[in-house]
């Protein structure tokens, strides 16, 4: 039955510790110091993941541009979502600004990434 959608397998056994084709790697640990100012507490992590974050945002922009080839949607995101950051409660507003500073990703696009889950509940 595994080869017929929905590809329902017999319950797996003995898969732990993780290995094999369904395991893509361990997740690295980072420390976030809440005693630091919100604007700088994500700096180390974002420095390390700057390339990956930029790549994800670019994929999202490409998808948006597939639907709106004029580039208007991303223009709206950059112009309209950035001021919205100031309406977020502390410390989230300052943290997003810090992430935009370090990553070089426009603030509106950082905001878009952070509200993705809300947007896709429809």
């Amino acid at each position, binding site marked *: 039955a595994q080869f017929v959608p929905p590809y329902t397998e017999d319950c797996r056994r003995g898969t732990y510790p993780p290995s094999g084709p369904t395991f893509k790697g361990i997740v690295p640990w980072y420390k976030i110091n809440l005693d630091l100012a919100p604007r700088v507490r994500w700096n180390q992590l974002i420095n390390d993941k700057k390339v990956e974050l930029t790549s994800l945002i670019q994929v999202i922009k490409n998808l948006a541009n597939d639907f709106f080839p004029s580039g208007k949607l991303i223009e709206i995101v950059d112009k309209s979502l950035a001021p919205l950051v100031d309406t977020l409660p502390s410390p989230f507003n300052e943290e997003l600004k810090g992430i935009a500073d370090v990553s070089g990703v426009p603030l509106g696009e950082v905001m878009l990434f952070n509200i993705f889950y809300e947007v896709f*509940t*429809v």
Partner: protein
Amino acid sequence: CTSLVAEDNAGRLYHARNLDFGLFLGWDVKNESWKIPEYLRPLTVNLNFQRNNKTVFKSTNFAGYVGMLTGMRPGTFTLTMNERFSIDGGYIGIIEWILGKRDGIWMSFLTRSVLENATSYAQAKDQLAKTKMLAPAYYILGGNQSGEGCVITRSRTAALDIWELDIKHGIWYVLETNYDRWKDPLFLDNRRIPAMKCMNQTTQANISVETIYDVLSTKPVLNKLTTYTTLMEISEGTFESYLRDCPNPCMPW
């Protein structure tokens, strides 16, 4: 997503999740996978939030995302959030927010706020059930005492249902995918029944971090949207996360 809280015969509480995200957001023809999970995997990190050099809470997160979807306040409670789809969805909350109606809270910010500030299972449950939000959600909460585990089904304004562990009546686990428990899941997206079948086969006597990983590794509970699996056990402070893949044949969701 699939989240569950389970209690073993000794009263130990386990909490685990598969995070699935990125449906319909671009298909990579070459790799036969969704694009967003491919790009989210390298961004996945475990975070240890500290104050005065002491851990306040731990989380599995995406770099650049400041809200929380998965976390543990060591020794106190564990928490995951699953997406709940609704016509009265988050986009309405966002529009209200833009228009200046800002009495609700962003759902992943609420998760973080609870992890950061709530000091007991009861307090966390109360905040998750009663705080007005911008989008509907399922909150899956585990505590540190026998019987402390629940799924809170939230609309934007209220808790529609709180489904709790009830060991005396044989409910030794609660399991949530992305559908209200009183409704059948979409027939094309039924991860609930396969997951429950595997939990029932495992039995309460054999539940552990290892066997829960087995359940979350069984297709279609594991699917092409699955980015990571997190396993938590509150009494030992176990917090483990693994990046996942679902080679063919595998359901796209």
